[in-house]
């Protein structure tokens, strides 16, 4: 018998609002840490990999160093603690200063059982690295997977992070990310949430260094009776920091999606700018879309912007697409396809591409996936 526990407060935004709206938090029912460890131990291949010739060090550790553990994540303490306790694989990756990692660091959670990985990546001064998190599971019912990724980006360093959640229908996933950017550091994150019965995607970034910057895009496709809860938090602390967030997606059937996006302009971040924009297309009679786009500000010389467009697409967009020959229905379809296509187009590794194509095949059919595989050439130039 699997024993379950409920994480009551997952994806808690910094500023909450009326509780009756049921937007503030999501509760996740997960197996107890002991059970996760027992089940996961049976699996052989490690979740975190890079390549033999990789200049980065990849070490299994008991616990991540304090510096990394202190980084706030988007999923919150309940989930942090559960993941830290459940993960049999806790991995520390060090990317030496000045190195340019040619191949990505991959956190691959594509096992069939419960898979929980806790990963810390420290990117040294002036270094560049790509980190890929793939969450996919093929068959087992009641599969839960979770990844908690903490990334410290030192001065002048850069990270590209690509996350793909394609769990299939009867699966749950928790995807937590915490990022800290030092002076002149930058990070670009692409999140693709294609399918999972219930998923909590929470990302927090702390732009602590002057001129540090973040670009973040989330693309989601939520259908059947799936639930996606997403929590984006960007704390702008350093001077002249930049943050650009774009979220977009399509809800169909009986999908429920909650997006909390917070830009926190903290006293001292003079000259900083933060922008967030969400576009949601509702394409189902029973969908529920919740959006909480928050700007917190206690600094004067800053600029914060939020925008959201929810529902049917804008009249201008629809007209533009009609002028190119699409009916309204086809235009809606285009948006759905586009989400999955994007995951294939931008997949940075063969495995990510494969998983994205599998998701396309599962959602839209094999022909579409094959067509796409032909048209879209891999963006990477290596095999795994």
């Amino acid at each position, binding site marked *: 018998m699997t024993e379950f526990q409920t994480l009551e407060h997952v994806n808690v935004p910094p500023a909450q*609002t*009326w509780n009756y709206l049921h937007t503030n938090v999501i509760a996740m029912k997960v197996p107890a840490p002991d059970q996760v460890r027992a089940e996961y131990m049976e699996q052989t291949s490690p979740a975190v990999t890079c390549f033999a010739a990789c200049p980065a060090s990849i070490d299994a550790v008991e616990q991540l160093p304090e510096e990394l553990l202190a980084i706030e994540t988007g999923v919150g303490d309940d989930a942090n603690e559960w993941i830290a306790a459940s993960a049999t694989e806790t991995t520390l990756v060090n990317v030496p200063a000045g190195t340019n990692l040619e191949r990505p660091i991959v956190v691959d959670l594509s096992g069939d059982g419960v898979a929980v990985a806790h990963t810390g990546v420290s990117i040294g001064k002036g270094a560049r690295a790509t980190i890929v998190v793939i969450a996919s599971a093929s068959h087992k019912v009641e599969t839960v997977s979770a990844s908690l990724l903490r990334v410290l980006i030192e001065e002048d360093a850069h990270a590209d992070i690509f996350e793909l959640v394609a769990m299939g229908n009867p699966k749950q996933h928790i995807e937590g990310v915490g990022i800290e950017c030092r002076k002149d550091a930058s990070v670009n994150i692409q999140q693709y949430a294609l399918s999972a019965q219930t998923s909590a995607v929470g990302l927090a970034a702390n732009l602590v260094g002057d001129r540090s910057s973040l670009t973040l895009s989330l693309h989601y496709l939520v259908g059947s009776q799936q639930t996606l809860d997403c929590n984006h938090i960007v704390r702008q602390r350093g001077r002249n920091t930049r943050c650009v967030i774009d979220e977009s997606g399509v809800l169909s059937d009986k999908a429920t999606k909650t997006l909390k996006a917070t830009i926190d302009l903290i*006293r001292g971040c003079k000259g900083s700018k933060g922008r967030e924009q969400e576009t949601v297309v509702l394409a189902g009679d029973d969908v529920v879309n919740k959006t909480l786009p928050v700007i917190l500000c206690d600094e004067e010389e*800053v600029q914060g912007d*939020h925008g959201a*467009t929810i*529902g049917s697409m*804008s009249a201008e967009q629809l007209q533009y697409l009609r002028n190119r020959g699409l009916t309204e229905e086809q235009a809606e379809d285009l948006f759905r396809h586009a989400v999955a296509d994007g995951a294939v187009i931008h997949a940075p590794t063969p495995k990510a591409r494969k998983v994205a194509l599998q998701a396309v095949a599962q959602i839209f059919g094999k022909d579409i996936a094959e067509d796409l595989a032909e048209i879209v050439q891999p963006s990477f130039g290596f095999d795994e």
Partner: protein
Amino acid sequence: MSKTKVQDVDRSMYDFIKPEEGYERFEDGLTPEIVRAISEKKDEPDWMLELRLKGLKKYHEMSMPANWGPSIEGLDMDHISTYVSPKTEQASSWDDVPEDVKDTFEKLGIPEAERSYLAGVGAQYDSELVYHSMQDSAAKQGVVYSGIEEALHGPFEDMIREHFMKLVPITDHKFAALHAAVWSGGSFVYVPEGVQMEYPLQSYFRLNAKGAGQFEHTLIIVEPGANLHFIEGCSAPKYNVANLHAGCVELFVGKGARLRYSTIENWSKNMYNLNTKRSRIEEDGVMEWVSGSFGSHVSYLYPTTILAGDRSSCEFTGITFAGKTQNLDTGCKVILNGKDTKASVSTKSLSKDGGISTFRSSIVVNKHAENALATVSCQSLMIDDISRSDTIPAMDVRCQSASVGHEATIGSISDDTVFYLMSRGCSEDEARTMVVNGFANPISKELPLEYAAEMNNLIKLEMEGAIG
């Protein structure tokens, strides 16, 4: 660029205290005895007493949300008197109002406004209405504008019973429950079918007593095809102990009817303002809110509109200006239930001198609200770097043919703009004031003339001062 130093607001026009000598004042605190005493004093129907006692019970059971909203720790209900009344009967001529009370309203300009542009005025002093009057022309059309207790003793009792605390149930939140228990005063307005009110009605609420609460209830029923503009004003002198305002406004707008509800809230900075306002709009009805929040120490204020009928619509225009020691959590809620409903929300907020202003809203579009349209636009202007301005808008959309648009911006007065104005001869101070006024202008032009002047004056006072 140097910053504008701002002075404390000169509130002399509101900040004068009248003695309470000879007033009836109930003991502080909240007990069933006090609730019964209030009820008895008003000689009201039994159902009302029952509602009050239920409210009191709920009040003790409920708590404030732990995870959001400004702290109300400074509010000790054991030191709030829920009922204070000047020893006077309600008058319909200012000549019959006691001198000190009359002087208060003269200073606030109420009788003058009544003479120049209002169809009727109600004036409440602490817990009781001291004056109520309406033009004969309106009365002849069947319009009723009276104290709510007075109306409870007349032919409208059933109608009041049918509507009283139905839009805002006593379980809504802790202070709605409190309101139900100890409410006193407020206005009842009934506009019969098809009646077009050419001039506004205005109720003014003045809380003079120290350490007291004001709990007026406003109930407005606008029948199909009718039209009303209602103005609500409020102020209080400043004390060093907490005062409480927990009023309740319930508005029923019939088919094809139109109601505009304008408020300039200017409570003193020791006031806890936990007010609840809600309206329900039937088919083709229109609700317009204009709301200015300048006063109080802590505010929780979110006028709510339920667009129940098909093609009903609402507009919410609001401004909040939080200064030193103020934490104003304001905004609105709209629930779109009918088909082809429309909601438009436009707000501005400013904070300075360590003040905190939070814009909080919720837009809920239910499944059957086909083709519903909602737009929310909120802008905040930062005037210094020790204040706070947060924007927390929630949206819950469940209808695929609906369209909801939201935009929020936060920014400071641009140096380019200040420089441009200075290059045309304005001082930096003038330039900044001009920018702030321009920022607030779209709101102030929605207000009745006198209120717009009052608001501009308030902003000017807030902005005045030397350049540092």
